[in-house]
């Protein structure tokens, strides 16, 4: 599904990713854990195609295609979805209108028929239940005046609507209380499937109690330094990042 090889990337002239290699097969959930500044968010933005992230070396292949050659909207149409760490509020644009435009843009790029208002609403009501998003929130301006938890639920709602093949969850747990974490995780788990891969980026192990990964990778200084099963996350939680950091230096 996703194959990252020897990826190097700069932000503001500074090297952040330094030879990252990673493969996520279809249907698997991989967690990427790492200390602050290790390059976790940079990786998610590079994959989603944000301006200002300069790839200097390496490749990213997604479903056999060169992901880095695509515009952000083309990546979305081909099935990449980024759940933002800090979702953007857009006053004046209603959540539903935004999402209908997004969904129909993707359908159009894929050569599918656009959904009319009634079909879209039916789908939206169904998917909103996954993350307990109220109809009132669905109609409000995109993330405008939303609490931290509501923003993250809205991200997962969008993911449910757009049905990506690869979902990148960038610190989706940050700022969530335990109830919100439970709701968001339930939503994510409901979207797991054999043809959908997920990359769950997090600083803390607690999210992985709720979204149980197939593989855990540790990212330090822009490279994957260890990979293992979910036990690795527990080990990191207990011992902290110092040990892997020291190993990476050695």
């Amino acid at each position, binding site marked *: 599904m996703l194959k990252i090889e020897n990826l190097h990337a700069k932000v503001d002239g500074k090297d952040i990713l330094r030879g990252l290699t990673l493969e996520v097969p279809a249907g698997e959930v991989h967690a990427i854990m790492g200390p602050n500044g290790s390059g976790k968010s940079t990786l998610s933005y590079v994959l*989603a*195609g*944000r*301006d200002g992230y300069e790839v200097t070396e390496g490749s990213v292949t997604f479903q056999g295609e060169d992901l880095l050659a695509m*515009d*952000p*909207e083309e*990546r*979305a*149409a081909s099935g990449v*979805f*980024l759940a*933002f760490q800090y*979702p*953007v509020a*857009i*006053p*004046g*644009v209603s959540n539903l*209108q*935004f*999402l*209908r*435009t*997004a*969904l129909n*843009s*993707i359908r159009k*790029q894929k050569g599918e028929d656009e959904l009319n208002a009634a079909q879209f609403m039916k789908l939206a009501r169904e998917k909103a239940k996954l993350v307990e998003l109220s109809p009132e929130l669905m109609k409000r301006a995109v993330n405008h005046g939303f609490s931290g938890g509501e923003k993250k639920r809205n991200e997962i709602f*969008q993911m449910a609507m*757009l049905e990506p093949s690869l979902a990148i969850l960038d610190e989706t747990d940050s700022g969530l209380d335990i109830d919100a974490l439970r709701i968001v995780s339930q939503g994510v788990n409901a979207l797991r499937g054999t043809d959908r891969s997920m990359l769950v980026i997090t600083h803390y192990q607690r999210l992985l109690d709720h979204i149980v990964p197939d593989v855990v990778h540790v990212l330090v200084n822009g490279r994957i330094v260890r990979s293992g099963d979910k036990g690795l996350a527990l080990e990191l939680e207990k011992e902290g990042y110092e040990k892997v950091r020291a190993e990476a230096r050695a």
Partner: protein
Amino acid sequence: MTLIETLPAAPKSEPAAMRSVRAAAHERLRATGLPTKKTEDWRFTNVAGLVGADLTPGASTLRFELPAGVTRESAAADALPGAGPFADLNAALAEETVVLRAEGAVSAPLELTYAGAEHASYPRVRLELARGADLTLVERYDGTSALTDGVVELVLGEGARLRHVRLQRDGGKLVGLVAVRQERDSHYGAHVLTVGGELQRLDLRVTLAGKGAECDLRGFYAARGTELVDHHVRVDHLAEHGTSHQRFRGIADDKGTAVFDSQAIVHRTGGHAEAHQENRNLLLGPGAAVHTKPHLEIDHDEVVASHGATVGALDADSLFYLRSRGIPEAVARGILIHAFAHEPLTGLPEAVRAEVDAELLRVLPESEALRGLAEELQ
């Protein structure tokens, strides 16, 4: 200065009072001349092109029908002294002052249409709202005029409510003054849409003369091509417990220039005032320019005031967020620009909403990408 030197004399048939008003306006104009770039209020707005132009008045182009509740009164002598050279030019040359009066709750909107002309025109309207009257006024500036120099006086009696929509889309040159005087507890709400031609200048001046008067001034403007769009908005708080809101937004694209000058003045007699000013601008073209200057003068301690002005590009985070959801860049830009433009236009009277939406689709960049989505956006 040819025109000013040779202004036609007032018609003999006019009452003496009116003739003397005209003569006084003419006299002031002869002394000041038309503004130059050295005139503080006209620093960015060059009207040199008008100096040698033929500004002889053409036939009146003002059209209106009176809804039940609005009557036409006989003209009175009045001339807003000191309102500036264009107001004086208007006073000297206006064919007549159309005086209208509204009583009670008027259900149908009063619609004034200025068709413009190849000649210059000098429409002059005075609208009085009786105590407790309630009215919606819609002004439309259409056509392509050499110069439309219009003066609109609005007088709101005690407790009167006026919703004023002004659509400035004259394809030529439009210089307008709207002077509003509000008595006690009256409410004035303005929505100005300026999407017109090469020169559009509006002076909107509101005097909160009675205790507890409120005004809510909103607008959106677009300067495209080589257009120049200039708004000067001023609110004077003369009486206590006055509230004023100014909320204007605009875009400058291509080589367009937008000027926004906003003043709120709380006089010594205007305590317990609330005065808010906000102006936000999107600079979309590399050759475009925005000059914005909010200022607040306070002569009283008990005032709640805020003001802010911004000039910037489209927000990169928002643009990326939309694109990351599969929305093509042009559509994403269009969505953000439309959302930006619609914000100050919330609360528009129902009667003009569709018309304003259509105007925005016509003038905003990237609207082409939004065809078919129009109904989704608001």
